[in-house]
């Protein structure tokens, strides 16, 4: 066994723990299960302690972290489930299938809770576009998202894409899914009721994705990574679509006690988690599992074949459940039953191969990793952008910025995604937040993802606060009130103290910003080991924000809506070129300090903007972010097909005013008559008129 536990990614101490728990040596199958369930990917063993500082509660939170997805109450008997996840390593090895199965996994998390998935958003990070490998990965990932998401009929309504050399060896493919449900259909991934049947639904089990969680997701990349291609699962969106419809039908008819998707660690994870959550045991006979090929019990237990669900069903409802699955053409079989106690017992043709306490699998070890401030920080932070010589032609700089890969129009990508199906998308990709109407009501959801890893690299604490603030600001610009957030924390190897310090600071920043902006963190995901050949990515926390628009007519886009309006800056512009896109593109540097984040100021500006929109004063709103005011104004003009002559008196030099990425700012438009009232509303906060003549028609 000694060689095997190492090969499976367990430490010697962890192996000893297993022996202690069982009071004996584990069988090979048991060891395989522990190796997956105790992997970083499944157990959060390095992050669990730190994540407990995140605020998770609010009166409208129906389900916080710990389940398949977080759920908030949006009124009218409706609830919204959402979560973000990573599929980084599989996508780096096999971009199409990696990205595709990433969608499949997060979508299952949503309908597992009883919600109909209504949208996906994809935050993506790639290496430099100059490299042919990046271009291959880029097109593979986009096609994978399109291929899977479009087939499911779930619109991909948003996301963001950044290119930076730090992702050359380790791309990031995160995905957020959102679902809507009647509150009474909420169901949890729990097994209860001794004697209830355990039903496996969906695809047959095959050898694909064996050990994905431990071998791929919980190790760094090196020269053997390509050999890990067999650990990547293969997606079947058609079966997933049938699963969605069948499961939602079963839930609507009240036929299920519990529902759990099979993701990382497959049957091992689904059985142990549902049993542990419900405080029961489970007895499974593996010979009933429908197989694609001849497999042994070890392989069956850890296979990560996609598009499978585990349902807990009362015996009297079993027949109807199986009939419903058959109508949808889905294989469904009883593989076991819920038992008293907390033992997970698994047989293979009558012979016991596993007998372990379910809770011991579901609650793995917890580590308090050493953290140490990285040495690079002093050097990068001490850089002062004031020492630079700026180019003379700032118009050229602006054009270079908006034609660069990070800030250019992303139509090429989002037009490959069906972003309209389901008829809810009322603000399309390309604005600050996508807006989804809630049919049958006058309300809508505003959703956005955000995460600028350069800021986080330069200061993990401040950078992560900015990610939260900006995601919220995006929702506000669309006319929404931010409600709750999910996140995906992408970092390097947590066993390295410098990386763990970054993580610790980022979580502290996330918690602080969420608390201050009163945004509960209802779900999330941690992805460690994002390194290749020992080099880590920039620390990349990505925040997904969901907000509520009370009345559809108060939704806003970034587009200048009409001629004759005033262009107004809400918030203060400061001399803050550190970490900016300007610095990177023009001077090739990632240095300085990120823009300052004053959470009090942020909250004030957001509240002012929400109120200005609600009272009908603000006609359009755009968050000022990467590329600064210059890029924000250009985007507003292009989206609206209007021009504007901007003349501003500031104490800043033109480069700083144009390209600083100061936070807590909106570019808004309003009628001249409303300027006075807006100033009163904003109290002491800065409301600066930016044009001497109203915006005009640019003539096509």
């Amino acid at each position, binding site marked *: 066994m000694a060689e095997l536990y190492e090969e499976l990614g367990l430490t010697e101490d962890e192996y000893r723990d297993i022996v202690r728990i069982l009071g004996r040596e584990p069988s090979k199958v048991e060891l395989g299960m522990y190796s997956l369930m105790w992997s970083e990917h499944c157990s959060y063993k390095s992050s669990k302690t730190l994540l407990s500082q995140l605020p998770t509660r609010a009166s409208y939170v129906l389900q916080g972290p710990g389940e398949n997805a977080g759920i908030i109450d949006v009124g009218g008997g409706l609830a919204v489930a959402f979560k973000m996840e990573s599929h980084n390593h599989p996508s780096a090895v096999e971009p199409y299938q990696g990205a595709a199965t990433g969608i499949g996994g997060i979508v299952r998390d949503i309908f597992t809770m009883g919600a109909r998935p209504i949208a996906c958003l994809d935050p993506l990070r790639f290496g430099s576009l100059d490299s042919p490998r990046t271009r291959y990965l880029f097109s593979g990932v986009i096609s994978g998202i399109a291929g899977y998401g479009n087939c499911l*009929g779930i619109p991909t309504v948003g996301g963001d894409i950044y290119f930076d050399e730090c992702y050359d060896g380790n791309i990031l493919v995160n995905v957020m899914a959102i679902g809507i449900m009647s509150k009474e259909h909420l169901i949890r991934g729990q097994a209860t009721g001794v004697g209830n049947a355990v039903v496996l639904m969906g695809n047959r089990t095959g050898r694909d994705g064996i050990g994905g969680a431990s071998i791929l997701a919980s190790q760094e990349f090196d020269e053997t990574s390509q050999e890990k291609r067999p650990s990547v699962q293969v997606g079947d969106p058609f079966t997933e679509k049938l699963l969605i419809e069948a499961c939602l039908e079963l839930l609507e008819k009240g036929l299920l006690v519990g529902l759990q998707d099979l993701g990382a660690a497959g049957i091992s994870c689904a059985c142990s988690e549902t049993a542990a959550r419900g405080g029961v045991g489970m007895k499974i006979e593996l010979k009933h599992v429908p197989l694609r090929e001849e497999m042994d019990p070890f392989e069956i237990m850890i296979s990560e074949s996609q598009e499978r669900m585990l349902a807990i069903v009362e015996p009297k409802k079993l027949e109807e459940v199986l009939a419903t699955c058959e109508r949808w053409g889905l294989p469904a079989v009883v593989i076991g039953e819920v038992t008293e106690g907390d033992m997970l017992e698994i047989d293979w043709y009558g012979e016991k191969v596993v007998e372990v306490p379910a809770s011991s699998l579901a609650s793995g070890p917890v580590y308090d990793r050493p953290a140490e401030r990285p040495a690079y920080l002093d050097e990068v932070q001490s850089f002062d952008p004031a020492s630079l010589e700026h180019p003379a032609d700032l118009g050229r700089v602006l054009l270079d910025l908006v034609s660069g890969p990070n800030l250019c129009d992303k139509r090429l990508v989002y037009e490959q995604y*069906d972003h*309209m199906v389901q*008829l809810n*998308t009322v603000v399309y990709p390309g604005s600050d937040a996508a807006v989804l109407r809630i049919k049958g009501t006058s309300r809508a959801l505003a959703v956005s993802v955000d995460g600028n890893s350069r800021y986080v690299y330069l200061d993990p604490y401040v950078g992560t606060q900015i990610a939260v603030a900006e995601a919220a600001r995006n929702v506000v610009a669309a006319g929404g009130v931010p409600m709750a957030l999910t996140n995906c924390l992408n970092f390097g190897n947590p066993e390295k103290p410098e990386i763990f310090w970054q993580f610790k600071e980022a979580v502290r920043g996330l918690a602080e910003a969420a608390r201050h902006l009163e945004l509960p963190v209802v779900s999330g995901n941690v992805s460690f080991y994002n390194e290749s050949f020992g080099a880590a990515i920039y620390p990349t926390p990505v925040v997904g924000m969901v907000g509520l628009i009370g009345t*559809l007519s108060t939704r806003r886009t970034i587009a200048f809506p009409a001629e004759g309006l005033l262009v107004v800056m809400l918030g203060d512009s400061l001399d803050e070129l550190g970490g900016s896109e300007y610095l990177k593109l023009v001077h090739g540097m990632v240095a300085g300090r990120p823009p300052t984040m004053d959470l009090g100021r942020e909250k004030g500006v957001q509240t002012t903007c929400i109120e200005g929109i609600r009272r009908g004063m603000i006609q359009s709103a755009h968050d000022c972010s990467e590329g600064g005011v210059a890029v924000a104004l250009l985007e507003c003009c292009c989206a609206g097909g209007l021009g504007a002559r901007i003349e501003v008196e500031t104490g800043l030099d033109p480069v700083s005013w144009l390209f600083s990425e100061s936070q807590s700012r909106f570019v808004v438009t309003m009628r001249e008559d409303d300027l006075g009232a807006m100033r009163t509303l904003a109290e002491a906060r800065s409301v600066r008129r930016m044009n001497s003549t109203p915006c005009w028609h640019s003539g096509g």
Partner: protein
Amino acid sequence: MRFGVVVFPGSNCEMDCFHVIDKVLMEEVEYVWHQQTDVSGYDCLVLPGGFSYGDYLRCGAIARFSPVMEAVADYAREGGLVIGICNGFQILLEAGLLPGAMLRNVSLSFICRHVDVRVENADTPWTNAGRQGRVLRIPIAHGEGNYTAGAATLAALGEQGRIILRYCDRDGEPTTASNPNGSVDNIAGICNEGFNIFGLMPHPERASEDILGSMDGLLIWDSVMAHYRAKG
């Protein structure tokens, strides 16, 4: 008027069509399961968009073997109104109820965006509420909408006025630049000889409400309802 929306495994626009017929047109509507063999109670059948059977083979190639398709063919043969949208159009082609075939888009990518299409023949059950030459702004969302057909078929389609919609620019010119997928002659929608079967790649159900940015799709729904009422 009573609509039936056919649901194949993998259809994903059936709820959108249902929503528009029920909530916008305020007409009767039911789902028709792909295993159903009797469709006699409906005044119009809608084959919605999606990825029937995953479109793992050619688009629509498996769906055409669904039990319901024989009933749809009989229904159409007797003059029943059938509209196939996107994947529904592809299924009608595979079933031989409309002529021609689909290739992958010339870009080899899926495309989802609003396009302009010109009404080529306003004297049909599907377009009578408009006039010839009217430009409609309706979204497309497909990977295989590059329509093709043999020379004889194309000539017949043209001569008999069976090309119903063509991709065009804002001014109504069917230019190469305004052709999103490479379709021959910019064809976006065609009818059978009896004009009771209509296949089109654009999604009229996505352009039937003001809040979604265009109501031009209503022309098609309004036309078929007017046709039905006129028929008595």
